[in-house]
């Protein structure tokens, strides 16, 4: 029980220890003096009286010590003493301390890298005042992950008719567009946005409600990120105009650093939502049907559930009003209705933290393996040292130290080292993150950097520090506890005689540790081998169409289409060009091919006749489209080889007719494309199969319909002469002059490289981890074996003197490691293979498995060979050293 008095007494003891000690001394000496006085009064001579009093009292030191123990600050006292002792022992063996700190620091650093990234997405809340009041109003996610959004009119009604929010704003985010020839990210917001989040600009003004009225002001407000990325933090940026969709927009304000607008990554600028059509021309004229996000500041004191219920009630009233009050709700449906609104806390972090955690868990596991191996190394080292320190520990035990006390002291020692390692780990993680970002941006395919990928070294904050300290403590528990228990399991008397206690030779623990290390290295190396093989396969992968010198050009601005196509046609580097809808990187439209009575699901897209020429896709049977057929009136199609086989297993396809029906549930409507009526079409040709990309979520269509290059909603694909990167730059220059807001333009080579790029990143990450793992394992194995040889010098000498050959001795030492290494390898391969099997069995995993060859036998065998070779190497040197021992000399030494 801790009372207030107790606390004040303890505090006093801690804060003024001198005074407390003084008082204690006074109190005890008074007792002795008083007793002496009594004895003198009873007639004893003074010197005898004093001696008797002292004898009756016993040792004042011991009594004082017991009083201190009662005082309850013994814990602090002991810790201070332990720390001092630990520092002394580090000075005695600085190399050991250094090795432990470095090893654990590498492990902690690797894990900290991952945590810093995770921290950025999950925990770093936006700097918005009272951010806990911010909630998004959303409809629940459907089973397929889709979410039906609200519209601007719905938002206006919600703002007018409900009273759960202090105020609420609407936004449309993630708009990537070319502004003044550069790709920027914009978020459109209602005029009250900045007053809802309560953020003031560092320069100029924020958006105001007046800006957002229809026919309001064409103004934008820069984020700190946009200001530094595109305007080099120019202090005179206010009043400058940029062209968006051909309309000049004035920069009226700059927002403070650290404000992200409740998004994970800040946009470059904010603009009034009323200007939607300038930013997304597809919505021109039907702005009211565009989906918007709704985020509000909950009234203080209102519970989230109460607010949700109010909005849901408002929503169902509104629903029945718009459906004319028809009774559409049966019992169960009305319960469903109650769940049509969810309130989602908005913190500027990932909206689905659980999904992010699911992604990060295996990564933490992989990165944590390094820490695990490092800790195992240190544990082994400490085990070895424990044997060496048996004498010291034996002495202390026989002097009356309790085993608990010594274990605590050993743990304090390790904890201190781990804390130092946490500091080192922090430095390592900063260094690693810096170089990762550097290499990632350097090796990224050229024009990919043109996009809005936000690559910067994530900042570390107090959470990273806390994480490191906790991880360091956990690591201490793992690497220090077992050796401390082992080291104190000694018999004082025998150790004092200089005998090593047999029981304390921790052979089994050591083997388990080696096994764990080999296991972890095996897992990581198999992973890196798999990624390497997949990256190699991917770089040789043939998507089935020409990618070296082709490019894709998005046309976003319909009124500018003719001028754009004209510019492309007159560009001398362009040899041929074609139109395609949907674009090359989009999923083709879904539909059905009805042959007789059977309907087959197929993917189709519209291409101009030059498409097959641009991409070098041969027509294997029949003919290509003629220029006359591009008007779209001719009911002719070209089908791919596999589609022909699927639809007409016995015929060759050419000349067949079938009915092509669009899938009404397909996303063609969402993509805002003209709908295609069902029609009867004739196959005029069969094109060679195109594999398509694998990592991008696209697939080549099986059926091609003719279309003109000037048709709306098409993208342009072109074949260029000379260096594609150069042609890319020329085209960007030329086309941004036609339309400064033009969409994406990328070489196909980049798209192809992107696929390899990701695999290469995965390969390098797992290779670095795998090599670290192997390095740590090998060095651990080496030091353990060296130590064992040193320990058994005498035994080996005797064996050799009795006639053991040096070969036999070598084998003896190697045999020490065979079992743990074999077990580790088996476990590693077993786990890797079973993980792979599980992955393939998952529906999402099957797609990954197509690209990442998780069961590649060469990868498994190669990494196993590497590990076995490395372990042999590590064991070889100690083993030969043992074999080269001179038996006479070793025996004489004893």
């Amino acid at each position, binding site marked *: 029980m801790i009372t207030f008095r107790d606390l004040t007494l303890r505090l006093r003891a801690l804060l003024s220890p001198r005074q407390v000690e003084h008082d204690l001394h006074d109190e005890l000496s*008074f*007792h002795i003096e008083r007793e002496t006085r009594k004895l003198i009064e009873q007639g004893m001579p003074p010197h005898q009286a004093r001696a008797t009093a002292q004898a009756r009292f016993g040792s004042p030191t011991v009594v004082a010590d017991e009083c201190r123990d009662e005082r309850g600050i013994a814990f602090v006292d002991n810790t201070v003493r332990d720390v001092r002792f630990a520092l002394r022992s580090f000075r005695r063996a600085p190399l050991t301390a250094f090795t432990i700190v470095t090893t654990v620091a590498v492990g902690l650093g690797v894990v900290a890298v991952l945590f810093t990234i995770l921290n950025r997405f999950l925990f770093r809340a936006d700097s918005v005042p009272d951010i806990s009041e911010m909630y998004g109003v959303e409809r629940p996610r459907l089973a397929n992950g889709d979410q039906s959004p609200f519209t601007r009119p719905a938002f206006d009604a919600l703002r007018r008719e409900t009273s759960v929010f202090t105020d609420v704003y609407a936004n449309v985010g993630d708009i990537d567009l070319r502004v003044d020839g550069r790709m920027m990210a914009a978020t459109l917001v209602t005029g009250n946005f900045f007053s809802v989040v309560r953020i003031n600009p560092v320069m100029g003004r924020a958006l105001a409600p007046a800006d957002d009225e229809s026919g309001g002001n064409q103004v934008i407000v820069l984020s700190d990120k946009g200001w530094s990325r595109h305007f080099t933090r120019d202090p005179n940026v206010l009043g400058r105009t940029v062209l968006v969709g051909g309309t000049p927009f004035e920069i009226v304000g700059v927002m403070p650093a650290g404000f992200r607008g409740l998004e994970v990554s800040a946009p470059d600028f904010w603009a009034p939502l009323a200007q939607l059509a300038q930013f997304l021309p597809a919505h021109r004229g039907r702005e009211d049907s565009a989906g918007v996000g709704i985020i509000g500041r909950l009234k203080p004191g209102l519970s989230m559930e109460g607010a949700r219920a109010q909005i849901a009630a408002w929503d169902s009233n509104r629903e029945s009003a718009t459906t004319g009050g028809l009774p559409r709700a049966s019992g169960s449906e009305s319960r469903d209705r109650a769940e049509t609104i969810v309130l989602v806390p908005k913190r500027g972090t990932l909206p689905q933290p659980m999904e992010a955690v699911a992604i990060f868990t295996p990564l933490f596991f992989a990165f944590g393996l390094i820490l695990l191996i490092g800790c195992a190394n240190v544990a082994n080292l400490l085990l070895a040292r424990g044997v060496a320190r048996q004498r010291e520990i034996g002495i202390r035990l026989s002097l009356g130290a309790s085993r608990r006390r010594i274990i605590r002291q050993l743990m304090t020692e390790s904890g201190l080292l781990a804390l130092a390692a946490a500091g080192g780990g922090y430095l390592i993680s900063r260094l690693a993150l810096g170089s990762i970002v550097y290499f990632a941006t350097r090796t990224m395919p050229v024009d990919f950097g043109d996009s809005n990928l936000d690559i910067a070294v994530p900042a570390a904050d107090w959470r990273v520090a806390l994480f490191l300290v906790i991880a360091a403590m956990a690591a201490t528990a793992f690497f220090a506890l077992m050796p401390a228990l082992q080291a104190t399991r000694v018999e004082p008397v025998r150790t004092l005689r200089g005998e090593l206690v047999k029981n304390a030779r921790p052979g089994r623990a050591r083997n388990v540790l080696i096994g764990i290390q080999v296991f972890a290295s095996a897992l990581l190396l198999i992973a890196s081998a798999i990624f390497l093989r997949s990256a190699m396969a991917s770089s040789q992968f043939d998507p089935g169409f020409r990618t070296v010198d082709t490019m894709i050009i998005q046309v976003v601005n319909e009124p500018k289409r003719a001028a754009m196509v004209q510019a492309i046609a007159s560009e001398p580097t362009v040899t041929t060009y074609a139109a395609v809808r949907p674009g090359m990187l989009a999923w083709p439209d879904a539909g059905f091919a009805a042959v007789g009575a059977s309907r087959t699901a197929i993917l189709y897209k519209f291409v101009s006749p030059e498409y097959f020429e641009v991409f070098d896709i041969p027509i294997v049977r029949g003919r290509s489209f003629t220029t006359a057929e591009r008007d779209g009136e001719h009911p002719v199609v070209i089908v791919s080889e596999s589609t022909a086989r699927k639809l007409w297993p016995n015929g060759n396809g050419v000349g067949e007719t079938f009915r092509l029906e669009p899938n009404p549930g397909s996303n063609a409507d969402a993509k805002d494309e003209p709908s295609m009526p069902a029609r009867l079409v004739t196959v005029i040709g069969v094109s060679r199969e195109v594999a398509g990309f694998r990592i991008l979520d696209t697939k080549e269509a099986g059926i091609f319909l003719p279309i003109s290059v000037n048709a709306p909603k098409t993208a342009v694909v072109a074949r260029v002469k000379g260096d594609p990167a150069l042609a890319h730059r020329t085209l960007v220059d030329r086309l941004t002059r036609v339309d400064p807001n033009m969409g994406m333009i990328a070489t196909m080579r980049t798209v192809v490289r992107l696929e390899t790029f990701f695999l290469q990143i995965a390969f390098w990450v797992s290779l670095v981890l795998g090599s670290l793992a192997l390095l740590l394992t090998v060095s651990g194995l080496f030091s353990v074996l060296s130590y064992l040889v040193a320990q058994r010098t005498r035994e080996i000498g005797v064996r050799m003197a009795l006639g053991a050959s040096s070969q036999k001795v070598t084998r003896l030492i190697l045999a020490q490691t065979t079992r743990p290494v074999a077990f580790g390898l088996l476990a590693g391969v077993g786990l890797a293979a079973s993980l792979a099997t599980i992955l393939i069995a998952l529906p999402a995993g099957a797609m990954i498995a197509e690209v990442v060859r998780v069961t590649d036998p060469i990868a498994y065998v190669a990494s196993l060979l590497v590990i076995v070779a490395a372990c042999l190497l590590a064991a070889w040197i100690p083993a030969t050293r043992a074999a080269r021992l001179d038996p006479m000399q070793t025996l004489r030494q004893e």
Partner: protein
Amino acid sequence: MTPRPDLLPGTLDMLILRTLQRDALHGWAISERIQEISQDVLEINQGSLYPALHRLEHRGWIEAEWAVSELGRRAKYYRLTAAGRRQLAVETREWERMSNAIGRVMKHA
């Protein structure tokens, strides 16, 4: 010195509290008082008296004050607190129950 029976475990705290029931005393006086009243049957091991005093102080059952003693030098006087009084009542009750029970067993068993 004739061997003396050890104090029953756990009774030292109770004896200290009881001794302090009337007035504040310093450590030596407490041990003297116990010895005196028990007619020298209970002699408190002086070494164990002080840790006990510090323990009781930390529990909040007694509080200490420095005052000038009969020797003319300062000494630490302990006094019962309200919580200490309650604790003493509890321990007295418990003790009586125990000693009655033991007495009955010794008489009738």
